[in-house]
């Protein structure tokens, strides 16, 4: 319950207009902070939702696969350069961002994660980091301006951010293969 409140506070905080304005004025913060934080807010709220609608999650996402596929689809959608641009010019896309990141990405990731087999979890690490490496390559080396609302120099910075995050995920993934987590739990 406490977690759900923290999640809600974070969610509301991210929706305060000056916060929205600030986090969207810098491309890297928009992509690498605002969006993931919305996802994290959703993850915090997940246990509350699971308790509130236990049969829903059990019935429709029993083995976690529909949930993780939903996570990937929405997550990939937000990697489109156009999606980020459109949040700035179209209100309905902005609204969709604030709904989809917490509830479609955050909630489905956390609900599915506990249900997934190790093979699936490994696949998630690999797919996300490969996608991020691809985005890093695209944003760092693209000679064109990919987002009309941001400067090219910001675009490159964003690319390096993708690269850094991809390496962090890969590093974490590799250590899960060699270190027995149960010893530390």
């Amino acid at each position, binding site marked *: 319950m406490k977690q759900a409140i923290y999640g809600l506070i974070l969610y509301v905080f991210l929706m305060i207009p000056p916060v929205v304005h600030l986090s969207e004025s810098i491309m890297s913060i928009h992509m690498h902070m605002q969006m993931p934080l919305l996802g994290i807010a959703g993850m915090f709220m997940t246990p509350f939702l699971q308790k509130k609608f236990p049969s829903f999650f059990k*019935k*429709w*996402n*029993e*083995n976690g*696969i*529909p949930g993780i*596929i*939903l996570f990937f*689809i*929405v997550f990939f*959608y937000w990697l*489109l*350069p*156009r*999606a980020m*641009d*459109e949040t700035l*010019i179209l209100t309905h896309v902005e609204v969709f961002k604030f709904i989809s990141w917490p509830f479609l990405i955050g909630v489905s990731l956390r609900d599915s994660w506990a249900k997934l087999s190790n093979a699936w979890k490994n696949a998630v690490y690999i797919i996300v980091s490969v996608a991020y490496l691809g985005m890093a390559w695209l944003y760092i080396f693209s000679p*064109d*301006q*990919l*987002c*009309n*609302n*941001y*400067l*090219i120099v910001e675009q490159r910075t964003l690319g390096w951010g993708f690269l850094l995050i991809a390496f962090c995920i890969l590093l974490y993934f590799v250590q899960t293969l060699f270190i027995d987590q149960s010893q530390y739990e």
Partner: protein
Amino acid sequence: MFKSRHQMISLAIVLVFGFTLFYIGTDGFTAFTEETARTNKLIEEQPLLPDITLEDSKGREYSFDEFEGKYMLMTFIYTACSTVCPQLEMNTAEIYESLPEKYIGEDIVFMSVSFDPERDTPEILDRYRTYFGSDGETWRMVRIPDEQELQSVLDEFGVIVIPDGEGDFQHNVAYYLVDKDGYLVDVLDFSDVEGAKARVLETLEQEGEG
């Protein structure tokens, strides 16, 4: 993999939702960046040039009506730009020189519009035009002195100009082909000079026949 029917149903829903999301979000898998979406939309909508006042490199003031009955190849620039604008105008010069003389000034005028009216005075524009072989008549360099009018043209043509805070602007770049009645008919890739040449020539030749 799926023990229950519900799993199948929810997976199907998720997949349909995902397909729809991507389909709508990319205009049917055609536009993955806002710039492509913008260009497609402009070509489809063919907006009309707003009625506004221009000031050219000779200090003359007039509106776009001045060029009624002629095609117009427009670019949006600012003269302090050291990156893409010179490249754009070099390419414009190449197109300008490649067209048969009979069309120049008669059937088509070239128009480079500055979106930095504060610094791009007629004197500056007059100097700038000489770098690219513009004669100031059949290829004019103009500014739009009124800020609101300038913005209305930029909005209508979807030109996004972001000041970078150090006196420069980031802006999207293209050729805008405007027809004899002032409607935008095509947006051309500025880096594909051959393609742009061919498109302009084709338009002019068709007009000559028709």
